[in-house]
C-alpha cells in the first residue's frame, strides 16, 4: 500500500478528488472480495490432497477466511477513521455536559463507539469530562462503551458471524455501558475519586485553545488511511494466527465437542467464562477467532458473548491507568457493576435463544 500511495500522481489525485479515489478503491475491494472463495478452492484443488480430507478442509477454510477477515476489517477500520474526523473528544464532551441521567448515559455509550479513544488518554479525558460538568455516571458509560464496542470487534464479528451477531454485540455492549453508568451514577460515588482529581475539577483551564480548522475531505480520507495503517498494521498477525487456530479446530475437532461443558444447559458456564475472561487481556483481534471456533463446536452464544465482553471491556492495563483517578473502592465498584452486567447478558442470551 505504501508504495502506491507515495507515487506522486496518485497522491495528487487523492488530494484533488479524494472521494473519487475512495470510490475506485471500493470497487477494487469488492472485485477482490468476490474472488476469494473460488480462489481458495482453486488453490487447494491443485495441491496433492484428497478433496475430502481434514487437511484440505482446514487449508481451504484458512485461505478463504484469513484474507476475507482482513479485507472486511480494513473496510470497517477505514470508515471508522473517517468517522473519527467528525467526532472529536472535545465535541463529545460538549454534547454530554450537564446531561441528565438516562438520556446522558445512552448518548455517552453511543458516542463512545464513534469517538476516537485511546486508553492511554483515559485519565485526561475522564477529568476533562468531569470538569465540563459531565456527570460521573455518564462519564463511566462513555468509558465502558469506548473500549468494549470498538470497530475491530464489530468488524471481526461482522466478517465471521454476519451482521446479526455484530448488531447483537453492539446492542448488548451499549446496554451494559448504559446500565452500569446509571448504577454508578445513582450510587453517588463522587467522593471516591482521588483527592487531586476533585481539586482539579474546580481549577480553571490555564491554556488557550486554537480554533480547530475544518477538515477537508482529502484530510478525512487521509485519517481513514492512517487508521488502517495503525490498526490493521498492528492486529493482522493476531488475525492470521487466530484464523489458523480456528481452521485447525474447524478441520480436526469433532462437532459438539464443547457442547457438554460450554453449552446452554451448563448454567455455571457463564460465570466461569467471565472469571476466565476478566484477568485475560488481549485485543478483540486475538479473542474473536477463538470465539468463532468455540461457537462452531457447540458452545452457547450467551456464554461466548460474555467471555468476549469480559476479555475486551475489563483489562488490567486500563484499570491501572484508572487507578490514578479512582480510589480502590471505586475501582472495585466499577469492575463489579460491569461484570454483573456482562453476566446478565450471558444468562439472558442462553435463556432466550
Amino acid at each position, binding site marked *: 500500500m505504501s508504495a502506491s500511495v507515495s507515487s506522486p500522481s496518485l497522491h495528487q489525485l487523492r488530494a484533488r478528488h479524494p472521494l473519487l479515489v475512495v470510490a475506485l478503491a471500493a470497487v477494487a475491494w469488492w472485485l477482490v472480495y468476490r474472488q476469494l472463495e473460488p480462489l481458495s478452492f482453486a488453490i487447494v484443488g491443485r495441491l496433492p490432497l484428497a478433496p475430502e480430507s481434514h487437511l484440505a478442509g482446514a487449508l481451504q477454510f484458512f485461505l478463504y477466511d484469513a484474507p476475507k477477515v482482513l479485507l472486511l476489517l480494513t473496510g470497517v477500520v477505514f470508515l471508522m477513521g473517517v468517522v473519527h474526523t467528525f467526532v472529536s*473528544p472535545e465535541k463529545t464532551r460538549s454534547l454530554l455536559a450537564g446531561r441528565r441521567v438516562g438520556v446522558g448515559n445512552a448518548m455517552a455509550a453511543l458516542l463512545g463507539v464513534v469517538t476516537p479513544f485511546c486508553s492511554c488518554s483515559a485519565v485526561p479525558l475522564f477529568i476533562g469530562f468531569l470538569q465540563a460538568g459531565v456527570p460521573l455516571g455518564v462519564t463511566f458509560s462513555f468509558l465502558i462503551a469506548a473500549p468494549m464496542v470498538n470497530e475491530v470487534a464489530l468488524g471481526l464479528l461482522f466478517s465471521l458471524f454476519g451482521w446479526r451477531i455484530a448488531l447483537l454485540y453492539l446492542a448488548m455492549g451499549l446496554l451494559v455501558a448504559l446500565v452500569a453508568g446509571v448504577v454508578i451514577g445513582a450510587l453517588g460515588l463522587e467522593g471516591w475519586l482521588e483527592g487531586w482529581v476533585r481539586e482539579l475539577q474546580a481549577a480553571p483551564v490555564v*491554556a488557550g*485553545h486554537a480554533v480547530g480548522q475544518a477538515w477537508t475531505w482529502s484530510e478525512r480520507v487521509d485519517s481513514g488511511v492512517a487508521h488502517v495503517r495503525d490498526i490493521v498494521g498492528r492486529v493482522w498477525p493476531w488475525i492470521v494466527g487466530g484464523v489458523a487456530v480456528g481452521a485447525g479446530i474447524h478441520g480436526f475437532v469433532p462437532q459438539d465437542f464443547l457442547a457438554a461443558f460450554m453449552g446452554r444447559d451448563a448454567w455455571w458456564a457463564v460465570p466461569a467464562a467471565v472469571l476466565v475472561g476478566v484477568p485475560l487481556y488481549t485485543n478483540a483481534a486475538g479473542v474473536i477467532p477463538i470465539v468463532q471456533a468455540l461457537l462452531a463446536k457447540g458452545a452457547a452464544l450467551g456464554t461466548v458473548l460474555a467471555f468476549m465482553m469480559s476479555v475486551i471491556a475489563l483489562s488490567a492495563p486500563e484499570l491501572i491507568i484508572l487507578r490514578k483517578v479512582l480510589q480502590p473502592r471505586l475501582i472495585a465498584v466499577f469492575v463489579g457493576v460491569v461484570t454483573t452486567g456482562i453476566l446478565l447478558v450471558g444468562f439472558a442470551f442462553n435463556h432466550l435463544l
Partner: protein
Amino acid sequence: MKHIKVLGKGCMNCKTTLARIDERARKLGVEVELEKVEDMADIVRMGVLSTPAVVIDGVVVHSGGVPSPAAIDGWLR
C-alpha cells in the same frame, strides 16, 4: 523563539511527535524551545482531553494523535 510543549505520558505517539517537531524545526531553521510535559495534573490543567497534544506559546494547537509534518510546518512559520 517559539516555546513548544508536547503533552503526553510516555506513549509511543508522544515520542514520535516530539521527534517530528524537532526534525521539522531543524529543517526549516526555526529556533524552538521544546519541552515534554508528562505530569497528568499539568496536562489536565491545560484542558487537553487526548494525548499527544501540542502547546505553542500557551495555546493548544493540536490534540490526539501524531500531527502531520505539514501541520507542524504551519505552526512553525
